């Protein structure tokens, strides 16, 4: 009788363990998918920022382009220095 009781308890314990493991597996999977969603969202944000950074870099380079600077400088009445206007500091 005692052996039968122990066997039954072992069976119940295994059943409970199996349930816990099963639920854990489901929980881990849900967490994984949630993390994947969050990660994807962060990746998208990062990519958007990267793209924006690239565009701003292009814009900055355009504004700093020698031709653009010269055009704006000439509009402001500036011009390249003449030889006698240059002093070399050594």
């Amino acid at each position: 009788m005692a052996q039968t009781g122990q066997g039954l308890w072992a069976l119940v314990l295994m059943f409970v363990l199996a349930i816990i493991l099963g639920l854990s597996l489901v929980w881990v999977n849900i967490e994984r998918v949630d993390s994947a969603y969050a990660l994807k969202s962060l990746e998208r944000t990062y990519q958007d920022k990267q793209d924006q950074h690239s565009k701003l870099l292009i814009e900055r380079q355009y504004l700093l382009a020698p031709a653009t600077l010269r055009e704006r400088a000439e509009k402001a009445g500036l011009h390249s220095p003449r030889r006698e206007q240059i002093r070399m500091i050594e």
Partner: protein
Amino acid sequence: MSRTAQKPPKDRSRGKIVFVGVLFALAIMGLWARAYYVQVIKGPEYAKMANRQYWVAETVSGKRGQILDRNGLLLAKTITTQSVYVRPHEMVDRWAVASQLGKILGRNPQAVAASLDPKKRFVWVDRKISDAQAQAIREENMPGVYLDAENSRQYPQGHMAGQLLGFVNVDGQGIEGLEKSFNDYLAPSSAKYIVQKDAAGNRLSSSEKGDAESFDGQDLRLTIDAQVQLALEEALARSVLKSRSKTGMGLVVDIPSGDILAWGNYPLFNPNVVKKTAGEWKNRLAVDIFEPGSTLKPIMVAAALQENICTPTTKYFCENGKWKVGGKRIKDTHDYDKLTVSEIIRYSSNIGSAKIGLALGAPALHRYFEQVGLVRPVGLPLPGESAGLVRPPGQWTQIDLANAAFGQGVGVTMLQMAEAYLCLANDGVRRPLRLTCTSEPPTGEQRVFSTEVSRSVMAMLEEVVQMDGTGTRARIDGVRVAGKTGTAQKASPTGGYGGDYIASFFAIFPADNPRYLVVMMVDEPQGGHYGGVIVAPEVRAIGVQLLTASGMLSEPKEAIVRSQSSAPKYVAAVQKYETIAVSTENMPNFSGVTVRQAVEVLVGQGIVPKISGHGVVIEKQKPLPGEKWPADKRCQLWLRQDPS
């Protein structure tokens, strides 16, 4: 009275239990059987179907590499832009969609509607639209209208070195210029990964994908210097427009390294707007063959000196300007009698050059042409580079040899000529031109002329500019300049030579310590065709900028004299302050002080003054002298032109 004995009801519960038990057992067996069928028999098939539904292959690719100038200035970069497409069968109201898209994209709604054929499953409406347009489309949230990210190549410097850079097609493949020749180097790589997707089709992140930036193409750093490039392009534009020429091209080379600092073609070409240009992307510098004319004479003379045919002082009779060789007449611009070899270069005598060439002979002249690189492509990584057009010496007649000696009858590219001059400027050692930046010293050098010969020729080229030669308009005060003019007649399509010319000028700055080689050419100038008149002044302008920027240009003597003579006009009799007494509490008196001194004091107190009037001396100020320093950091200074 009889009593009927009632039988106790039959206990069927056991049977019922067994029946139910059997039913359950059958049900469980059925379920097990079904589970077995689904899991074991059909399992692999269903697993495959599920995988198809939940896993998808995704291609990850990087961006095309950047192109930079030698100082790291961005010349080309790929960015992500949005393109708009429509699935016409998903649209609810075709006209409403067309109207909205037309309004946002600045297009005719009727034309948009016409393109949205309901029978089609997919229609591109516009590619590579602006961020603002993409955002407007996103906000409209129209059914059947989608945005897709695409890569777009941008050239932030606009037309700068446009023909050299080339451009890419809509798929990002280089199809012209350096974009084409370095396509494999610049192109990004890609890889396919299996990623999970949810029921809505959203793709989930996968740790296996890694960093997309690791797939980016490699960056390409050129030897081009954007500042020098701008100077060249502006000079080229001035020269072409002033002389009303068809086209122009120029090159600036750093002689010690062979690095090409500027590469100019005119008309300019902006690779950002390829569709709006008509054939202007042709890289004439590398592709077009022209007859170099007199600019070839120094190469021929160097060959003759090297072969001991003559010395710089050997005199040749120049036939008073007209000479017949093989029945053809050769002419000079002036009636020269006897000229030394140096004078032949200085005055650019065709007859004198022809005589030297005839004495040298075709095989020797051709051999030197070969050694300085005039009969094969220079070897820069550019698509379609020409090899020149110099016939084998065996095919040359006497007049061909005479013509070749002064640069007619042979076809070369500007690049080939630049490399030949680089050899002369580099003490007779041929140095390959370089277009991509490297910290390594030049390689593949080969001696062609002795140091003495190349220096003799350099001295002759210096006479062209510094004495009474044809290139006097390239003189720069305080710097010795070497140069050679070229005015070549263009071959007529009907045979012989017509009335069109190529004017060119090659210059080396400074002649005594060659640092820069500047070459420039204009095609078919109108109203004058001499290289020394049309091109030399603009080459000089580039030289001035190069030497000024590199600190090699000293202040001209005449400028010092001028500034001294005109000094009273600019020098104000300012109040002599050793130092301005600055109190921590009160404003000093700036009256009579120079602007510079006053501003230095104010900035030291964290005040940027507002300045009114003209001149260099402070007339009055607000706050007044002795008042407290302004808490709001506001201060105004008034200037006066002349000292009172």
